[in-house]
């Protein structure tokens, strides 16, 4: 078996767990692109492709964060609010004359604090992740509102030009910086998840908490790490939004946690924990972006776009639950049936 893997690189790629689903959704992505391309040939124009990629980037970034948390078997509902918080905090500081890069660092520290609170509440205090992050979601949104006394900020000003270019308007090798930031974060976090001890612990905790604990895995630290990644990603997206509009908006990132779940789950990250790869999140975020962009191109109103995306998310989760947790999988692999010893 080892030898045949070496001979056939394709097989080696397919042997990566979770790759099957990624290939399946990739086919879906290609089909979507072709359909939108036929409906409107300018869908494939270089201008639109550039825009499309830039639209996908934030979704991908928060998707990465949510994937980390989902793989540990938890969920992070605070992502959208942390995006808003990051946007408002950085913008407020910049309008008050703080050096943009200092503002970025302070913002990052605040977001990390939220991530730590999430992790501690879930892992140490054993709150249900849904409730814990629902709480921090509200708190973070409150902080976003209070940052500038319940107003959106003014323009972050001339001094922030380099900041705006770095996060949004600048281009390197013909691609917008936002895309590069997303790519860099993906590379770093994909390496963290697939190649390091931290990443392995994240999968293990999501697959079987008790077995991981008995294998010497520090559950609290591992859960914290996942929520930290999520908070860092949300922070980055908040900064991107701030750079884009050149001001802080209090409702920035509204319902982004939903988009993050969508990107992860469409890409094959299991809401049941322990399964999924970040390559899937790329495809998931792309599908989400292509739908948004394509429907917009096709002239569909925002409401219709929301409905379509909502349906796709529900169907993806449904497929995940049915295929992974439900009967068909148990039929295929008898031994994975969850043990339900009532004790």
């Amino acid at each position, binding site marked *: 078996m080892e030898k045949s893997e070496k001979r056939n690189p394709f097989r080696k790629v397919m042997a990566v767990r979770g790759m099957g689903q990624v290939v399946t959704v990739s086919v879906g992505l290609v089909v979507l692109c072709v359909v939108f391309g036929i409906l409107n040939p300018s869908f494939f124009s270089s201008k639109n492709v550039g825009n499309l990629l830039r639209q996908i980037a934030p979704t991908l970034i928060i998707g990465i964060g949510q994937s980390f948390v989902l793989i540990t078997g938890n969920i992070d509902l605070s992502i959208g609010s942390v995006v808003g918080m990051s946007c408002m905090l950085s913008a407020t500081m910049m309008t008050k004359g703080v050096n943009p890069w200092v503002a970025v660092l302070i913002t990052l520290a605040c977001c990390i604090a939220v991530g730590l609170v999430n992790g501690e509440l879930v892992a140490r205090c054993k709150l249900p992740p849904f409730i814990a992050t629902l709480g921090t979601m509200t708190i973070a949104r409150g902080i976003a509102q209070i940052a500038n006394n319940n107003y959106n900020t003014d323009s972050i000003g001339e001094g922030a030009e380099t900041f705006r270019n770095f996060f949004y308007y600048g281009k390197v090798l013909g691609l917008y910086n936002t895309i590069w930031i997303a790519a860099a974060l993906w590379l770093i976090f994909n390496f963290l998840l697939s190649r390091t001890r931290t990443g392995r612990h994240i999968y293990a905790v999501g697959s079987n908490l008790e077995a991981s*604990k008995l294998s010497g895995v520090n559950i609290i630290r591992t859960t914290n790490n996942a929520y930290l990644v999520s908070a860092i990603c949300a922070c980055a997206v908040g900064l991107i939004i701030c750079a884009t509009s050149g001001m802080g908006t209090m409702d920035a990132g509204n319902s982004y946690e939903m988009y993050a779940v969508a990107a992860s789950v469409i890409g094959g990250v299991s809401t049941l924990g322990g399964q999924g790869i970040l390559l899937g999140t790329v495809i998931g975020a792309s599908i989400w972006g292509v739908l948004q962009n394509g429907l917009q191109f096709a002239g569909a109103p925002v409401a219709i776009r929301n409905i379509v995306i909502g349906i796709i998310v529900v169907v993806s989760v449904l497929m995940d639950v049915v295929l992974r947790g439900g009967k068909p999988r148990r039929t295929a692999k008898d031994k994975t049936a969850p*043990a339900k010893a*009532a004790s």
Partner: protein
Amino acid sequence: MQKTVVQLSHINKTFPGVKALDDVSFDLRSGEVMALLGENGAGKSTLMKILSGVYMRDSGSVKIFDEEVGDLTPKKAQELGVAIIHQELNMCAHLSVAENIFLGREKVKGILLSSHEMNEEAKKVLQRLNINIDPETIVGDLAVSKQQMIEIAKALSTNARILIMDEPTSALTSKEIDDLFVIIHKLRNEGCAIVYISHRLEELQHVVDRVTIMRDGKFITSGNFADFTMNEIIANMVGREIKEKFPRVQCPVGDTILKVEHLNAGRMVRDISFELHAGEIVGIAGLMGAGRTETTRALFGADVSESGTVTLDGKPVAIHCPADAIRAGIVLAPEDRKKDGLCTKLSIRENIALPNLDLLCNKFGVVNRKKEHEMAQKAQQDLAIKMAGAEVDAGSLSGGNQQKVVVAKWLARNSRVVIFDEPTRGIDVAAKVEIYNLMNELKQNGIGVLFVSSEMPEVLGIADRILVMCDGRITGELDPAKTTQNEVLEYATRFESKFSKPQLA
């Protein structure tokens, strides 16, 4: 004359990559208990799942009550009178006995639940089985054995005539097993046909009329139980003679490796003190709930201990969490493989690497894949784990092989003390011997082996010294060469006088 109620002929079933059943035939008569025997992965469960409609057969015929039934679904099988009692109990712990019995078939008046009627009916079924439980008791408050009886009652309340029991005794104490056998006899006399799947061959003689033996997905033989000797049965199951059921290795006892003094952790671990020497296997015997698992968990740092000192190779070690224990060189292969031992969704390679990532990572925490593969391969060879490859889900392995993976992940590092909690539960004879050999090998290498087991012959056969626990305390230390099962049992039931003997129910 007994009537044939089930006839399965030439059943084939293939799962991706595995031929689970290969031309298997099986028949069952009314009023008999049929033992379905075979090693793990022999296809017993698969065959029974076809009979109960959980799986679809690929080919072959299924006749129930002389009627060709075609494609079964679980619901259809239930209507035909087939009920299966799984190894793992499927109960809603927060609901009452009656609610569980009528789960999914609730009796209603209009839109209102008719609790009174359900309670009455449940009471009747329970009385029929001579089970003295109030139908309104919450199931989670009952002992496991009683819960199992509720499962049987549930099956009977659907008028089941064909009852499949998958490892019904694996979680029961000997007294509870006796109660179960009384019920099985009663059902048999009423004309039920019972399929009994078990690895505990010694209990068969008490309940079984006929046996069917399977191996590697094939039918091997069947016949009256009385016509077989135990050795013939084992030989048919494993396809070869197993000479020594309990291979014993003598080696000189060396220095003290582990010294535990006055360990306390809650009600179930009270003032535990013992020593473990190089070159010996210490067995911990006792009844269910004697605090054996709790002791191993406290020692390993999985549960918080209140007081006590642990000395390893003469040096005191502080153990606050499993990571401390692992670092010090004390490891635990836990009791419940699926719950505590394995990440079933991860690959075998990842499972073996999990506790050893400190050895496999560089100082930046990056996993060295080459080393990881080597570790998985070495483990597979050393333990003869049967698997399609190290990349498959650990959950897809058979019980014995899963157990080997659990053990393998701890043997990959140089530990000083290996604790096994019920290492042979639910695995077949051949795999058991392999686990024993492994323990012996550790012993010869000067590693301290501590093992918890509920199977008395196993403790007497393998251990060099036996600690008996009862009610959270060590009540006796015995030499297996000079003791008997009765003596062990006597110590195992030595409850403190101030505590009344706990009632199981």
